[in-house]
């Protein structure tokens, strides 16, 4: 169990972390997700002992023990860097063996034991027979796996990964994500990884921490943060979303001539509302469906890929929005650019400035 309590960290005038608290359960795979400058990497480095919180501003606990100002070397953490930080003058073998070789003589394993452990780890990260190579002779994905093996060699209490796949191309990144998830299933080590890529966080992590401007916006399982975002920031940051401006009054949201139920705002009195709807949660039809349908013009249709992407424009105020239909759904409706259709917002989320939940 790893806890960060009320951590504040300033770099000069810039407040990187503002009273952040987080607890990481043993064995979980946690993602710190946020845009750059959100403080996610700073939080990770404070847990690692590569940065320290401002004096008196927060504590870091490893299994209840206060390690806030302990140096990194004493914390038994495994850290993987975005650019791998492999020792470039050492072979793969020596890189992985490093953490064992620098131990004091009393706890240093015998050479035969070091060899056995390194070979075992290289096999775990699927780099058998690569032990004599130098880092420069490996691909990016292989380098990051060496870095992971090196971090795991010291049997860390927690594995910390700073944008581990950030420097890799899209295809390798996807492979490594799946591989990391698999690896975590095999060895169950408490792991925290930092990413700005929402797909990565949602796909790999068992819990996601969404961060923004040095604070935590929401913590939850991938389903929770995606399906029930706590606030407009999380909605915007996780996946594409359409924003409509309307008004909310007594549990009903009014959008142009339509009115839709907004049960989460029963007491709102004609307050301005922001209505968030994901592109795949909008139904498109050629015929009006009464009160709940919103007339719109088709601007553009892009049928490439598994989904059909449609750009629409509201007839009443000209606001543009996007819709994604499956190919199946798109067959039931006439989609000609320039023609009029009716859309129905299926799963909308209303945030009101006056009365927000």
């Amino acid at each position: 169990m790893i806890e960060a309590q009320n951590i504040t960290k300033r770099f000069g005038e810039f407040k990187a972390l503002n009273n952040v608290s987080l607890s990481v359960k043993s064995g979980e795979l946690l993602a710190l997700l946020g845009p750059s400058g959100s403080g996610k990497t700073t939080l990770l480095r404070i847990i690692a002992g590569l940065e320290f919180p401002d004096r008196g501003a927060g504590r870091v606990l490893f299994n209840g023990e206060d390690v806030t100002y302990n140096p990194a070397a004493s914390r038994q953490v495994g850290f993987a860097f975005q650019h791998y930080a492999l020792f470039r003058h050492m072979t793969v073998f020596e890189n992985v063996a490093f953490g064992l070789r620098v131990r004091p003589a009393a706890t240093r394993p015998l050479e035969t034991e070091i060899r056995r452990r390194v070979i075992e780890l290289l096999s775990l990260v699927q780099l058998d027979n690569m032990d004599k190579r130098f880092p420069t002779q490996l691909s990016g994905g292989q380098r990051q796996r060496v870095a992971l093996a090196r971090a795991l060699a010291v049997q860390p209490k927690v594995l910390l990964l700073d944008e581990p796949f950030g420097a890799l191309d899209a295809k390798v990144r996807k492979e490594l994500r799946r591989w990391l998830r698999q690896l975590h299933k095999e060895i169950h080590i408490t792991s925290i990884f930092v990413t700005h890529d929402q797909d990565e966080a949602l796909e790999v992590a068992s819990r996601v921490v969404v961060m923004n401007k040095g604070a935590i916006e929401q913590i939850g399982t991938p389903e929770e943060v995606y399906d029930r975002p706590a606030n407009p920031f999380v909605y915007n940051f996780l996946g594409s979303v359409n924003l409509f401006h309307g008004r909310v009054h007594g549990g009903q949201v009014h959008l142009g001539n339509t009115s839709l139920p907004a049960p989460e705002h029963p007491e709102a009195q004609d307050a301005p509302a922001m209505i968030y709807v994901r592109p795949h949660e909008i139904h498109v039809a050629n015929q009006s469906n009464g009160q709940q349908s919103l007339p719109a013009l088709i601007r553009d249709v892009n049928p490439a890929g598994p989904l059909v992407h449609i750009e629409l424009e509201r007839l009443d105020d000209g606001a543009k929005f996007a819709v994604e239909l499956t190919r199946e759904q798109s067959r039931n409706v006439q989609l000609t650019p320039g023609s009029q259709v009716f859309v129905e917002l299926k799963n909308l989320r209303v945030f009101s400035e006056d009365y927000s939940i």
Partner: protein
Amino acid sequence: MAGVITRLNKAKRNTRAAQDPAWVRWSLIGVSLAFLGLFLFVPLAAVFTEGLRRGVRVYLAAFQTPDALAAIRLTLLVAVIAVPLNLVFGLAAAWAIAKFEFPGKSLLTTLIDLPFAVSPVISGLIYVLLFGAHGLIGPWLMEHNIQLIFAVPGIVMATLFVTFPFVARELIPVMQSRGNDEEFAALTLGANGWQTFWRVTLPNVKWGLFYGVILCNARAMGEFGAVSVVSGHIRGQTNTMPLHIEILYNEYNYAAAFAVASLLSLLALVTLALKSLIEAQSAEQTQND
């Protein structure tokens, strides 16, 4: 793979260069070669021919006088003291500047360049003003029977000052471009500061360090101005090779002067050879990165 890319790049560069008209290329090459030949190669050749003009025997005899031997010994002694010290100072300064943030960092960076900016004669004079008989600390030193100026310690200090920037200047850009990640990685793996330095930092900068050291050594052996001011030119005692050459020359002993000069020139050639060797080595290393 890296090799293939370099070759491709080279091929690309060549085709682009080939688009310039031939006369532009050849006149540029011609001008540079003529300049180098006139101002560098001819004088260098002259040093050796002048030294050998009166035969090999006279040439070798120039090194066998007690004064010449003393000068060579002193030069080596100064280099043996100054180079290791500046290796340590330069490494420490480069480390501090490249890896830490601290108040006064930009001042330190500027100070490192000071010996380059100041004329060596002035650096020598500063030592005389400080430690000489009429200097600030001079009387106190005399009371305690410590002689720095017009003695070997003064020469060592002047050389230390003049050669200080070489190692640090070579290392700072190398260390800055490498960043701190490898050191951080070593720390998280449980290495202490000492282990991190010997196993990670030092191997990473070894070529830059070596290069800085040979430049530092060349300057330490060849320094004239600063050493000339503090040495007092006592034959057999405080004359280094460059000072010895000057004395021989002023006494119209050309053959001997050029003979000793040729020895210093040889040092320069060896330095250049080592330098290009190192550059080839480190280029190979960066190519692989």
